[in-house]
């Protein structure tokens, strides 16, 4: 991706509010037509990043480009970005059509063109025929669509969405996720999407920047974030995982050995690591096989089933392994009855590539 194809580019951007460093040296670029998500817990600085892109806050330091142009001097109403606000911020004194037309009227477009574009925006969000309704006469999902139409009708270079689905119930939220994805594919606009819901980010995004405490922990494609988390925070925040603390006792070649308590685990680090490195081994519950081990399984641990939770599509077992600790294991419910009982001894097995090795900076307690 060359620099000219980047719709948004942040370079060493920081933002402080008094003593609070809300955004700390953040750099990233969003490619044209990309669905890019900022994912992180509450208060990590997601909204602040969005407000800097849209122009409501000025960075304390660093530079910000939109379509290759430095926008430091541009007020929000001059920037080629539009925002879908967390609480939508639809104008209550206007109808649906008036809300959507507002941005076009600000551009002083001819009436006929405004009418045409409002019409096609309503069609895009499947709200044709709702133009004369008042905002108060719409359901939550419909309001959502109006907010999206109002921003998209401006044909922005970048659409910014700040947790736009936060107020909806789960079912509607999942529906709107697919809907947003469809709209984005249809018009090909660059989307920058903020959420604290990792499932939502995984469902919709091309790439995700995981943010923690104002910094980017990892910026990667969705599958890389899930399969190869680079920090314990990312491993724990995206999906669920077992984190085992250990020390590299044997390095060399593709595989290495990590001592976790009394157990010796074969792992495959991304990059060669020196001996005696303190590491965390992240092992997803669905990557562990429970039951009679296949002959080629490199890692085996014997334990006892402590608890069983039936979760519909799968069952979650908590297995106590002496000298290592408790591990969560998911088993797909291919058959109706759970095959294991609490208190029974079981064997866990997985391949070296199933686990991710996260080196720990020495002295840092996690």
């Amino acid at each position: 991706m060359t620099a000219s194809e980047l719709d948004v580019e942040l370079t060493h951007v920081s933002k402080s509010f008094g003593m609070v460093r809300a955004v700390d040296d953040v750099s990233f670029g969003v490619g044209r037509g990309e669905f890019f998500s900022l994912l992180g817990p509450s208060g990590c600085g997601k909204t602040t990043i969005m407000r800097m892109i849209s122009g409501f806050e000025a960075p304390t330091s660093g530079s910000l480009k939109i379509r290759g142009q430095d926008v430091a001097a541009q007020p929000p109403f001059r920037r080629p970005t539009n925002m879908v606000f967390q609480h939508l911020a639809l104008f209550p004194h206007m109808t649906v059509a008036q809300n959507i037309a507002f941005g076009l009227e600000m551009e002083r477009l001819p009436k006929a063109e405004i009418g045409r574009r409002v019409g096609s925006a309503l069609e895009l969000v499947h709200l044709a025929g709702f133009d004369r309704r008042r905002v108060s006469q719409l359901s939550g999902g419909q309001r959502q669509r109006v907010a999206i139409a109002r921003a998209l009708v401006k044909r922005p270079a970048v659409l910014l969405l700040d947790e736009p689905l936060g107020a909806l119930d789960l079912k509607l939220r999942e529906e709107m996720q697919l809907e947003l994805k469809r709209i984005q594919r249809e018009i090909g606009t660059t989307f920058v999407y903020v959420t604290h819901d990792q499932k939502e980010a995984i469902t919709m995004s091309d790439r995700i920047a995981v943010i923690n405490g104002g910094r980017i922990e990892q910026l990667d494609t969705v599958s890389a974030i899930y399969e190869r988390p680079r920090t314990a925070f990312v491993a724990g925040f995206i999906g669920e995982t077992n984190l085992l603390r250990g020390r590299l006792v044997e390095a060399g070649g593709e595989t290495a050995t990590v001592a976790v308590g009394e157990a010796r685990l074969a792992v495959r680090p991304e990059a060669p690591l020196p001996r005696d490195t303190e590491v965390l081994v992240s092992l997803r519950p669905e990557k562990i096989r429970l039951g009679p081990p296949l002959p080629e399984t490199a890692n085996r641990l014997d334990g006892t089933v402590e608890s069983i939770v039936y979760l519909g599509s799968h069952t979650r077992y908590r297995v106590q392994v002496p000298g290592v600790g408790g591990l969560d294991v998911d088993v797909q419910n291919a058959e109706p009855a759970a095959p294991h009982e609490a208190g029974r001894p079981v064997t866990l097995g997985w391949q070296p590539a199933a686990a991710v090795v996260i080196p720990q900076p020495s002295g840092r307690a996690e």
Partner: protein
Amino acid sequence: MVNALQRAWTLLVYLFLFAPIVMVVIMSVNRSRYSVFPVPGWSLDWYRQALSDPSIVEALRTSAVVAVIASVLATSIGTLAAVALVRLRFRLRKVAHAAFMSPLIIPEIIIAIALLTLSTTLDFRGGYPIVVAGHVLMGLPFVITVVSARLYGFDQSLEEAARDLGADEVRTFLRVTLPLVLPGVVGGLLLAFTVSFDNFLVTFMVAGSEIVTMPLKIYSMLRFEFSPKIHAASTVIIFITISLLFVYRALTRKDRYL
């Protein structure tokens, strides 16, 4: 039992509050020249006489003109002041707020004297401008209070949304902020109108001889020729004031947005 007591007490309070006003209204339709009770007979004669007295009609007109000008000015200034006081964070914001509110707290007689002193120092005696200025001053705190209340209950992201969609500050104010605080603005306008229409003290001190508003007219009638015309004229004022309050109530109740 408690209920009956409560009701009686409420009645007493209302009686205390409204009996004098009710007396004025009753006496305005009393056939006799004298304020006696029970009333010997009913008549609208005093209204006829009052409304055919050119000086009373002229006073009513003067009051209306002053009140319209003063309330429109107070509302425009007060609305902008409220926006600045609520939205902007500047040094001396609290001081500015207190200054605007002071006419509510400082005794009116002192404000009247201050205005009089100012107008004589500036050699700017009497006339509409100084009367209107005084009334604007008295109306401002009401406008600012009502409009500020509206602004505080207002989702600021609406203004950000407008700016995000391409509206500059002025158009954001005209297209989003103003329509949404409009019930407050209209309420402020009506309150400022009543404040001006009813004002006596400030007008009395600064008006000079050629401006006679309704309250001044009533006062001079009381002193020189007592006549039940006064009751009729007062009832007209009461009626205008109360109807404006009803208009205000109706406007704020029909409020759909907040």
